């Protein structure tokens, strides 16, 4: 193992000291949501205790302070994903809202009936349904890149789907159900060679690897704060400035205007044009604190440590008879999705819970993926930087024991 300071990190997450059903918590549901370090919790308490007021409005001291902190978080996000400008960082409620924003604003203004949107067979419902809604509204057509049995995108099929009709590609950076990391740089390159913009769903990828939106050259990148050890109710839409400038507002209201009369409204510039109403102020400042926290360790080190965890978990899981790993892509992040012969994932989930182990059992908001593998659901253990080999041992022992009990 590397010298990754996992014990120091664990001490920073108060919830990891909790007991669940009288057992030490083994939290392996990080793909659903990550736990929060004390730094993020403290940041929220500090904002509400000392620096809270509404932003962008007041001349009073607290409003100015809160605005500074809020815009400071925007700069932290910009630097974290290496965007060219803070004008390209739009705060939203989560990755889901970011995709809906692009579908409704970019989609409705730039696409027309018959245009095609390319997604993949491993998308989360959040990167399927908004496009289906757009298709129903304006008559665009959804095309789906298939995957192979390992859970990898069929790249040749993807290339074949890029036609003169294709007007947008929207693909996940990392699959939440399978763990597959897609070759997003090549995906973007191929689309750009035909002048097709690309949205990357980074909800799963963002906590696990360094993301450089300029290097990827993607047109939109979306993620949720709660999966990045930050507060829930926060999310980010990154968009290239020229594209965002050309897009109409998504919602109307306060904070997104320059001038309002009853006959017309002049919209604010970027990024405020897309941020109607009072945002989750303390939470977004807290997201900035989460990024500061992660920067202490660096995403490259986190990525390397998690890769070791996944390799160890995979090796251990392969030794369990009757355990089938769902998703065995060559490029994979810290997700172990599996089924057990004759034991339903919900029973696995309840039994492991009684041992203090939190995993997800279900379709992971990716029902088409379940259909592809012919299973109603899977059990999924998903790893974060605070998980350890010992916890994986506890998980594997739990799985072996429940197989025994079911007989």
């Amino acid at each position, binding site marked *: 193992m590397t010298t990754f300071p996992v014990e120091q990190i664990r001490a920073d997450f108060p919830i990891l000291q909790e007991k669940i*059903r009288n057992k030490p918590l083994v939290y392996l549901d990080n793909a659903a949501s990550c736990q929060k370090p004390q730094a993020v919790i403290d940041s929220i308490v500090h904002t509400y205790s000392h620096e809270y007021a509404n932003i962008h409005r007041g001349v009073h001291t607290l409003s100015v302070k809160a605005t500074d902190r809020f815009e400071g978080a925007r700069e932290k996000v910009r630097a974290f994903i290496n965007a060219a400008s803070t004008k390209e960082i739009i705060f939203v409620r989560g990755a889901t809202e970011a995709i809906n924003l692009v579908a409704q604003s970019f989609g409705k203004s730039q696409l027309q009936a018959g245009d095609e949107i390319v997604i993949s067979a491993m998308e989360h419902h959040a990167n399927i349904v908004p496009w289906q809604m757009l298709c129903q509204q304006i008559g665009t057509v959804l095309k789906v890149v298939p995957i192979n049995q390992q859970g990898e995108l069929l790249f040749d099929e993807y290339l074949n789907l890029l036609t003169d009709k294709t007007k947008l590609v929207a693909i996940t950076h990392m699959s939440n159900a399978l763990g597959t990391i897609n070759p997003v740089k090549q995906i973007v390159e191929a689309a750009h060679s035909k002048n097709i913009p690309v949205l990357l769903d980074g909800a799963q990828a963002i906590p696990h690897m360094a993301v450089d939106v300029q290097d990827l050259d993607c047109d939109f990148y979306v993620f949720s704060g709660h999966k990045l050890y930050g507060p829930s109710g926060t999310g980010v839409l990154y968009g290239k400035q020229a594209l965002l400038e050309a897009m109409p507002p998504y919602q109307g209201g306060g904070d997104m205007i320059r001038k309002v009369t009853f006959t017309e409204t002049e919209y604010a510039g970027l990024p405020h044009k897309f941020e109607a109403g009072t945002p989750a102020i303390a939470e977004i400042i807290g997201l900035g604190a989460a990024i500061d926290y992660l920067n202490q360790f660096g995403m490259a080190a986190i990525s390397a440590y998690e890769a070791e965890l996944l390799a160890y978990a995979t090796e251990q899981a392969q030794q369990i008879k009757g355990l089938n790993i769902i998703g065995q892509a060559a490029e994979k992040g810290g997700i172990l999705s599996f089924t057990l012969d004759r034991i339903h*994932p*919900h029973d696995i989930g*309840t039994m492991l819970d*009684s041992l203090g182990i939190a995993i997800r059992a279900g379709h992971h908001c990716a029902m088409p993926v*379940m259909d592809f593998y012919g299973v109603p659901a899977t059990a999924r253990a998903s790893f974060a930087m605070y998980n350890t080999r010992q916890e994986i041992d506890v998980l594997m022992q739990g799985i072996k*024991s429940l197989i025994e009990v079911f*007989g």
Partner: protein
Amino acid sequence: MFDDLRDLYQEVIFDHNRNPRNFRVMDDANRQVEGFNPLCGDRLTLFLKIEDGVINDASFQGQGCAISTASVSLMTEIIKGKTEAEAETLFTQFHEMTTGKSEDIQLEAIGKLAVLAGVREYPARVKCATLAWHTLDAALKNQAQSISTE
């Protein structure tokens, strides 16, 4: 190792999960309803043969967790020979038992079904146990369409 779960996973439940009773397609069924739990993807098809207000045969197909499989297996056993009215009463009693609305429910009255009383301590699993019964309820009300626990 799983001592805490003894109330939920009783031996009868493992038994019905391993060897579900009445697990077959019924060709001469006169009621057939599909039940679906979108939360976990469990799906079952319930077949009934009702003659003169009496359930003369009951069977099912589908896949689900141990709780839902045992629940539907036990249900098909217990409702055979019951009148529609008696089955409806059982549905109500079962529902009250699993959702814990009635603390003093007569467990003897529902016999074997009492093994499923443990689910009331597990809110996330109640729907696994009640899916079969909601499907039965729809079948008795002659609602031909599929039903969902949501």
